[in-house]
């Protein structure tokens, strides 16, 4: 749909203005708009991995949104898109919950393992590349065959390993691996052979 793209672009721009307003003026209206945009996604992301766990989803929404309020000034639009920044915070919050309460019990704090995106240097060449690869990925995802999207969703949204995805989809592990690899090739994610 030709009208879809400018729309998305518009949303991205206004969210970017909102995060700056939060960073610089502690603007609560801007925060409220960011909340309305991201909280349903964070909530759904949490429920995908832990179906039915509504209180946990609330906890993760709260954790990520408070962090966004707190760390807005550290967000650097040149290193990552806002949605990438929020995605990585939501993933870390989900890992943190799971390592304390069940799957993958661990005493290691994910904060020390997943270096914050804002720490990375803002190389203008790399940031141009990042914007470019992001467009390729967004466009490419829509064009992927559904069997490839299905395994990517298992892995990213449900946080499943390739092994678990293979068991739940009733597919051989080799098939899951090759679908993921094909999808990532199409999205130009793979750099190494």
């Amino acid at each position, binding site marked *: 749909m030709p009208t879809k793209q400018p729309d998305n672009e518009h949303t991205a721009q206004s969210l970017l203005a909102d995060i700056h307003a939060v960073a610089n003026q502690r603007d609560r209206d801007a925060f409220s708009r960011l909340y309305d945009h991201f909280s349903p996604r964070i909530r759904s*992301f949490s429920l995908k991995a832990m179906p039915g766990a509504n209180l946990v*989803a609330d906890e993760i*929404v709260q954790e990520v949104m408070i962090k966004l309020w707190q760390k807005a000034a550290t967000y650097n639009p040149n290193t990552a898109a806002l*949605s990438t920044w929020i995605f990585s915070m939501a993933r870390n919050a989900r890992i943190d919950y799971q390592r304390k309460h069940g799957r993958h019990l661990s005493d*290691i704090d994910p904060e020390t393992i997943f270096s914050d995106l804002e720490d990375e240097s803002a190389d203008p060449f790399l940031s141009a590349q990042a914007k470019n690869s992001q467009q390729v*990925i967004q466009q490419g995802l829509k064009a992927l065959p559904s069997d490839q999207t299905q395994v990517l969703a298992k892995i990213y949204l449900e946080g499943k390993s390739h092994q678990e995805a293979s068991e739940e989809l009733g597919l051989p592990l080799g098939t899951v691996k090759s679908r993921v690899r094909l999808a990532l090739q199409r999205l130009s994610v793979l750099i190494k052979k």
Partner: protein
Amino acid sequence: MILHHPSTEMLAEYASGALPMSHNLCVATHLEHCPTCQHEYARLNQVGAALFDSLAADSGTPNPDEQALKDRIFQQLDSVAPIAVSAKPASTQNGIPKALRQWIPENYDQLSWFRLTPAFRLVTLLKDRDGAQIALSRVKPGGRMGHHRHTGTELTVVLKGAFSDDSGLYKKGDFVVRDARHRHRPVVTRDAECICLMVTAAPIQFTGRLTRWLNPLLRWQHG
């Protein structure tokens, strides 16, 4: 030049949060040394973000208490102090990867190394709650580690120096996965000592005639 990387599957599971924390630790340590994998990881995060973004349309589970949650979060905003941009610490400090600095704040010498043979020392950094053993090995130049077998998957990241075994030569930053069937005998190159991060599901087992006596000692130290 790093030649041995984590597989694409492992990097994708790192980006999506599906790996055990001890494996995340190894991948993060490798990433600090490897611009190629950093780059690939950044793109894998973009894939995650694009899928995450698409969630709104199908979030068919509206939260009945949505407004109450939002109000609760807004009430907390005043009590949360903003965090400004922090000065970026050097990514490696005395050669200690950032991911390991919680156990090794200054240098490798400060750790209580346990001497297993004159050439080979070991220190456990953490026995994790899921049973994973996170340890460092330290072998003198030209030293051998002894024939050993893994009881589960073993991940190794070279932090300093280099070693070789029957499958190849591994240098600083290289990432090696060995599974339970693997029985190998690493030898450290003669020019420098070699320090590796090793993560195993259970203690390693020595299989050589002369080193077998080390097993109970290792279990005591490591288990």
